């Protein structure tokens, strides 16, 4: 089970300057908030910055810059 999930790449695993497409979002309590910010399956993104000590991660989706915590980013599956 563990190694299966580890095959999927999560947004939280990425480092600065990586780009990709959001493929899926795991159901979580703030999933609607993510949608509201335009973080939905199918969109392209790039990682703009990552705050130190496992702080929030800032991504560009379309033309918006959005910052979210690592914990939220763990629910976002990317490729």
């Amino acid at each position: 089970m563990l190694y299966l999930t580890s095959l999927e790449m999560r947004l939280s695993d990425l480092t600065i300057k990586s780009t990709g497409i959001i493929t899926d979002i795991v159901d979580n309590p703030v999933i609607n908030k993510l949608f509201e910010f335009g973080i939905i399956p199918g969109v392209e993104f790039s990682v703009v910055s990552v705050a130190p000590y496992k702080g929030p991660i800032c991504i560009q989706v379309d033309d918006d810059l959005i910052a979210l915590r690592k914990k939220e980013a763990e629910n976002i599956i990317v490729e």
Partner: protein
Amino acid sequence: MNNTSSLKNNIKIALIGNPNLGKTTLFNKLSGLRQKTGNYPGVTVDRKKGKFNFQNRSIELIDLPGVNSLFPKSQDEELVLDYLINQPDEDAPDKILVLASALNLKRTLYLFDQIRDLNIPLVLAINMNDLAQKRGIQIDADKLSLELGLPVVLISAKKSIGLDELKDVLIQDVELKTRPSHYIDEDQLPFLQQYCEKKNIQNPYLGFLKLIGEQSDENSTFIAENEIKPTKWKTRESILRYAYIRNILPNFMEVDKSKAVDFTSKADKLLVHRVWGYVIFAFILFAIFQSVFVVASYPMDWIDQGFTYLSSLVQSSMPAGYFTDLLAQGIIPGIGGVLIFVPQIAILFFIFSLLEESGYMQRIVYLMDKMMQRFGMSGKSVVPMISGWACAVPAIMTARTIENKKERLITILVTPLMTCSARIPVYIVIIGLIIPDDLYYGILQAQGLVLMLMYVLGVAVTLLVAMILKWILKSDFKSYLIIDMPEYLMPDFKNVFLSVWSNVKSFVWDAGKIILATSIILFVLATNGSDKFDRSEEYINEIHGKASEEEKELLLASYQLENSYLGVMGKSIEPAISPLGYDWKIGIALISSLAAREVFVGTLSTIYAIESNEEMTIRDRLKNEKGPSGEMVFTFATSISLLLFYAFSLQCFSTIVVTFKETKSYKWTAIQFLYMSGLAYFVALFAYQLLK
């Protein structure tokens, strides 16, 4: 619900939009200075109303807090939803003006799309069109208007572009056609219709919001009976609406990929850098301090000296008597005590509004989030905390943007521990007593250093208490942070000016009333008393018959104060405060500054002004103050004890009121007052006993 706005002379328009889109700018541009209710830095709280006339029609504009969707996650969002769905209300809008941003049309149209389904007459304004064009985004308003079936205006609120066209559209009638409910899956639609019929709700989307948003037995039964999954409904709504928007977007928007290199992403390379970001933030904090202490000290000196001069002028030029004394020793120092804060408050609000307007405030949230989480707060708590350096009242209100209830409560409870500007005069006077003006460590002035230490102490205790609260409070709420990092924009100086103006105005009025009233009451209480007070002249002549006239006058003054109503009050609390190193005169100052701590200095100056007729600055008076046996009253231990007492005690009526308003809880309001008072008393007690 009627779908047309009748041709009335007065039109009520509600302004709704996502946060950080320039909604406040638009509101200010449309209504100018004709606004009701004060606004606080950065966020729009309460219902702000403005009025303007256009072509013989009077338009009332209601500014609602910025929200991202109609699903309430924060108090601001609850407020907006409540306003929109709980109609009819006397404030119910004739029309809604939805503000979207040309820079991120897709996301801002989401909120529009939700509101559209409420079928209230609607106008869509798309802001920052000039910036969007610069970035290669072209929006065709006519095509969009056709697509949506309602008026669309492209504007730039900051540059006042398109505002006349917008006003023109606002006074015209809008007819909305009912459109298919594209926010729900077809197999679920019958349930929604059934619910609306049962509850007699005309508008299906209103029914949708009520069914999944309102907690009631009726709803729970309906949800259970029909096996509805409210979370699923919400999720599907988001996906369906975004799909709809993405689908229509190419019909009216073109994006030129070869857009100019983006300033924001360039600036962010530095401003949110893992090292430089923090260095720059620290530098900005330092700059705030410098301007508050160095720049503000000049106008503050002028105000202080000006009022001292005015007092002596009144005393010498007006006929001697009770009224002259009241004016020169009560009212004038009282007003001076209010106005002396104005420079610092103006500077602080000026800087905050610059940070907010430029978009940098959100970067602070991003940078500080991880650190603040350790203390049970969120990155968003940094804004209230920093605002707490100006005043805890607006600071506590800015905590509304924190979605998580525990983080928000902790932020509200600890924010008054930050060193607010009302503490500054108290600190400055007391520090001046124990540390000489000309003491330097290298290039650092010792007084300034101690003042900075007090700020550090404030922050440290704020974080410490927050951490303790984090341990004590249970949390049933999930904490999260998803924020928008807006484009960096040049601050609009009219907005900045308006923010400074309204904050200074409300301070001068609200705090001023209390301070002025306190100083008059104090003066009356200090110059009246019972029997002993009335017979004081006889008593002095009897006991000190041989003293010179001058000495007699001094002795009389101090005997009178001691036996005045005020003196009796001070004496009655002396047993409780003498372990802290305070005498009854300081006791009077403590009592009078219960409602507002800044009254402390004014009270001391009133008390000592009553005693001596010489016009001296407050600090000189305190330095000369001697106890009954000739010992100094303001010793090192007493001064430190006072500094600590004022650092922690919640002597601010306005803060108590705002905490109650924001928490809607007597319990938390009482807890905040009690823990801070307790902390103040025992820390001061400990310090005095240790140092004396």
